[in-house]
């Protein structure tokens, strides 16, 4: 693993006894995955041969979601794309497959993204991306995986995630047994305790396996195990470590080696995030002027998801959107070369609209920003209140959902606060997201 990236949303809510990170209403498994993939690719210069996406929800597997992520991540259509969905261990299975493919010389590199929309009660939203590549450079090297589980009646899965219908202490005991068995199969029982534990009953697992309580990581669903690998690896430079990840019925233990000189791959995690009294739910959104099923979006996907303009071969003038601007307004030439627009800029002018057509909600902020490359872009804001927007303020363009129009979601750029502002000025307080808030 030569590079990693992650994305966690900027809001927390309390759900029962738990405080979890939740995505904004226009974020979902797709936008979270795009964020993590882009974050990872900023740290990796080489080619990407394969993209694998691990979703938590099977209904995302056969839709356009994986191709949306590929396009927005700037990966061309020739990149092999594969998708899995399943329990929260799906990311580890994909990691093993990616390691095998690279070690066998079948591919040079795999970008693996695990994305969790956090729809269930206890699970935080977020996504993690890792780049597995054939590399001689110092790297985090995942090793063998072993799993253990058994028949646990009383577990029940529905839209709110896994619940145990019996005594919660049964569950702690069962899962701890699975974790110990998986560890025993991986290493001798007198080996070092797991450096990171994540998943169902993680606290009980840590206790049973002799790990320090600081080894327990928040439950991030399908993104959790890969984050645990990165966390353990970052703490173990020049040595080996183990990681345990659990579901209610099964545990996986995984060994990692970290070459001396490896830079910590653990992505920056957010500091304290603002608490919202109620979970954000603005997922419903009105239809656009064309449905997502229109050929329009097939023609426009690349330019809208990549924010890709075109530079005139004759005079250098940049046009956007290139699908609608095929003759240069400056020199009247016909030849263009793709040219990504800058994703960062400053508010040039903006409006707060409080009188919207039916279906659009009560208020919308729209910004015209001057981008760092001198071009301009107009878009709604996401996650910014009216008091946070002023002429001259720094903004960034990120992929967000514009509509879910009857299950045909459409994605394009919106303005969000700059990343440094979103992440609490660069804090790496990974443990501030506390579980089991009393």
């Amino acid at each position, binding site marked *: 693993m030569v590079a990693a990236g992650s994305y966690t949303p900027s809001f927390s809510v309390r759900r029962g006894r738990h405080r979890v990170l939740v995505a904004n209403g226009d974020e979902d498994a797709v936008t979270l995955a795009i964020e993590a993939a882009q974050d990872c690719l900023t740290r990796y210069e080489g080619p990407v041969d394969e993209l694998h996406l691990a979703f938590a929800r099977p209904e995302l597997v056969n839709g356009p979601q994986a191709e949306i992520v590929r396009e927005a991540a700037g990966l061309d259509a020739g990149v092999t794309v594969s998708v899995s969905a399943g329990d929260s261990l799906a990311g580890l299975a994909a990691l093993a497959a990616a390691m095998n493919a690279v070690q066998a010389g079948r591919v040079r590199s795999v970008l693996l993204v695990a994305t969790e929309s956090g729809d269930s009660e206890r699970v935080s939203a977020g996504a993690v991306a890792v780049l597995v590549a054939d590399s001689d450079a110092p790297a985090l090297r995942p090793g063998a995986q072993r799993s253990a589980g058994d028949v646990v009646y009383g577990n029940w899965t529905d839209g709110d995630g896994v619940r145990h219908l019996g005594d919660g202490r049964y569950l702690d005991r069962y899962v701890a047994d699975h974790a110990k068995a998986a560890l025993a199969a991986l290493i001798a029982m007198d080996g070092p305790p797991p450096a990171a534990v994540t998943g169902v009953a993680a606290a009980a697992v840590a206790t049973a396996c002799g790990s320090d309580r600081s080894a327990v990581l928040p439950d991030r669903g399908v993104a959790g195990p890969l984050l645990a690998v990165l966390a353990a690896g970052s703490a173990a430079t020049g040595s080996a470590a183990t990681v345990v990840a659990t579901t209610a019925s099964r545990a996986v233990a995984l060994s990692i080696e970290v070459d001396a000189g490896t830079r910590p791959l653990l992505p920056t995690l957010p500091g304290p995030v603002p608490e919202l009294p109620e979970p954000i739910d603005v997922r419903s959104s009105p239809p656009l002027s064309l449905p997502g099923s229109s050929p329009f979006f097939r023609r426009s996907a690349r330019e809208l998801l990549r924010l890709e303009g075109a530079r005139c071969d004759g005079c250098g003038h940049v046009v956007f959107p290139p699908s609608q601007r095929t003759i240069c307004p400056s020199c009247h030439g016909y030849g263009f070369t793709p040219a990504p627009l800058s994703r960062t800029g400053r508010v040039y002018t903006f409006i707060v609209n409080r009188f919207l057509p039916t279906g659009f909600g009560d208020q919308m902020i729209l910004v015209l920003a001057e981008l760092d490359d001198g071009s301009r872009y*107009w878009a709604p804001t996401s996650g910014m209140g009216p008091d946070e927007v002023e002429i001259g303020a720094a903004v960034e363009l990120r992929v967000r959902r514009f509509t879910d129009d009857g299950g045909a979601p459409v994605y394009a750029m919106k303005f969000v606060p700059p990343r440094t502002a979103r992440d609490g000025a660069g804090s790496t307080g990974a443990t501030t997201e506390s579980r089991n808030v009393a």
Partner: protein
Amino acid sequence: MRNKVAIVGAGMTPFGEHFDRGLEQLAADAYRTALAGVDKGIDPADIEAGFFANVMGSLGGNEIPSGATLANAIGLPGLPVSRIENGCPSGSDSIRIGAMAVASGVHDVVVVVGAEKLRERPTKESLLESGRVGHPILSYANTAATIFAPQAARHMHEYGTTREQLAMVAVKAWDNASLNPNAQRQASITVDDVLNSPMVCSPFTVLDSCPQSDGAAAVVLCRADIAHRFTDSPVYIAGVGLATEGLYYHEKTRMTGWDCTRLASSRAYEMAGITAQDLDAVELHDCFTGTEIMTYEDLGLCEEGAGGKLVESGDTTLRGRIPVNPSGGLLAKGHPVGATGVAQVVELFGQLREQAGARQVSLRNGKALQHNVGGYSVGISVVTVLSRD
């Protein structure tokens, strides 16, 4: 084309909520008023072609967006009629195209009718449906307010234009409208009224915004050299200009006004052989208060950035140096989109013939200017210069 085409008749319906009149009725009412306004009379058989401005037909209205809609409404099926839809300048563009048809020699007499029923549907499903027109992403959630407000916000930022100055535009418009029996607004308001009315889209409140209106307006155009058959006091089309500019916000080169207005007005001034200093009256597109302030600058009535101070000085009131929107403008007379540009010309026809009654401006040069800007992304402007000689 300077002075080759004359206006010999003009008329309009009152603007407002015509719940009892449909589009065809309003169009016919305006047409009949225009014909009745021809001093020496006109036979409908003299009319060789029609031009029909209507916008809602493109926005999910109940109108059939067709020239045949007008031909049948005015009892002339068979007449060659084109429906013209070019956003807010549809009415003035119809006059421009009608004038070109006459100037080209193809037709001697034509009628131009603009008609609109914005109140046929509930407010949030009417003109606001432009929120679902255009590019699904780049035009996302656009409304009439969102396509004019960003410029106003930038103008305030760059030039210190104040919300009070914006409000003064509305106060002036309502004052003028109260002298116009065809105006939708028949009251006076104060700056505080404007500032305290509900916010629509920053920086525009409800009273910074024009109402949604029903209404129609019509003019009769003919070859200048036959105008004496119809009237002894025609008004001539001295110059016309239409211009476009960057379509999407990010393609616009200036966000403190509209380059298309500058280009259209320079073309109209040049054709007419005049400058802004020669004008006795202006009917400009004050869909929002800020639009008027920026349009002062775009038309050359004042320097760039001085629009706020111009309205504050009182120079654009009825008795001021250059009266703007003596009719009450879109803000207070009303804005039935397709009819708007035609109605502006109806107003100036009366002003230049000194028939405007209590709101008559004083004429020095006998020149007046009509202006529209708009078109879903505010990328198009039409300017017409009228002259009484």
